[in-house]
């Protein structure tokens, strides 16, 4: 949701299909494809793919950017677990604001209600 909010602020139209890995380009986000490939590699088990994704992203955004990117991937890998393990619902205002793209991207299948 904050990805879309960022786009609205900067008058950019990001392709939210990037979130599901369904597009092979940057989705309107600078180095978006490299960022997605890095996130996928960090959560995956292919060490060669991770090394390649890390090197490519570092070359594109520099080591400081890479460090911040790795931090974000790590943080959300953790915060997702807090959300899933406590059964928190999406806040009403966030649910309303994201209803269209959740439906379009098929994300509602991940909801707490679907895991009762």
């Amino acid at each position, binding site marked *: 949701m*904050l*990805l879309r*909010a*960022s786009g609205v*602020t*900067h008058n950019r139209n*990001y392709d*939210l299909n*990037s*979130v*599901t*890995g369904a597009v092979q380009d940057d989705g309107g*986000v*600078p*180095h978006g494809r490299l*960022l*997605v490939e*890095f*996130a996928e590699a*960090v*959560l995956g088990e292919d060490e060669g793919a*991770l*090394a390649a994704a*890390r090197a490519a992203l570092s070359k594109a*955004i520099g*080591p*400081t950017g*890479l*460090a*911040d*990117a*790795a*931090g*974000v*991937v*790590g*943080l*959300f*890998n*953790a*915060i*997702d*677990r*807090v*959300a*899933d*393990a*406590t*059964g*928190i*619902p*999406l*806040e009403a205002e966030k649910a309303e604001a994201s209803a269209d793209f*959740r439906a379009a991207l098929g*994300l509602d*299948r*991940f909801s*707490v209600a679907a*895991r*009762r």
Partner: protein
Amino acid sequence: MSELYASAPIKIRADLAAAHTRAWERIGRPGNWWDGAQRVAIAAETRHAPSCALCRRRIEALSPAAIEGEHDSLGALPESVIEVVHRVRNDPGRLSERWFRGLIAAGLSEEQYVETVSIVAHVVAVDTMARGLGLDALPLPEPEPGLPSHYRPAGAKLGGAWLPWLEPAGLTEQEAGIYPAGRPAANIMKAMSLVPDEVKSFFDIVSHQYQGPLEMRDFSREYRAISHAQIELLAARVSSLNQCLY
């Protein structure tokens, strides 16, 4: 405070290194419901969990409940705690309220559950970042002596989650500051508020490893070496891979 990454081949921001140092030290100290040795054992089990054969079979199964057996564990924790650590570490997208209720019925307290989840989350945040950067995992802290405080906030009550939580109006002086001022507390902040110290510690990491509650919505400037859009793309892709709607 930043000595944690002093020899790392890549520069880690000093504020982030300091946050990790605080989190690591705290894992070794007595918490609210586990002592220091138990907390470090939970952290160690979190790292051990990915090698569990039972978890592998469950991940491949249509339903994890259909596969019975014993976890491959380090053996230092009760079975119910090992179950929490392994499921939260290895298959979080398929946790269910029924599974949670079963653990509580089996004798694990809600407070112990929250503190366990929090320790797993701390370790996953720090270790996943290290993996992304090709760094060795940080050595776990030495446990410190002492007893858990058994502090349960008086204002905790059932809200929208599986567990009781604290609404901002229910905070006492002892829990002051766990939620940001000037904006509603998000459900993710309330999620672990049955153990307020865990909220403070985990969101200390959040603020430095991601962004603080004000920075994340301030699109007028950038606070990191990557932009808001780049940060949110990473966050959303990770949550999608983890099958986490929130």
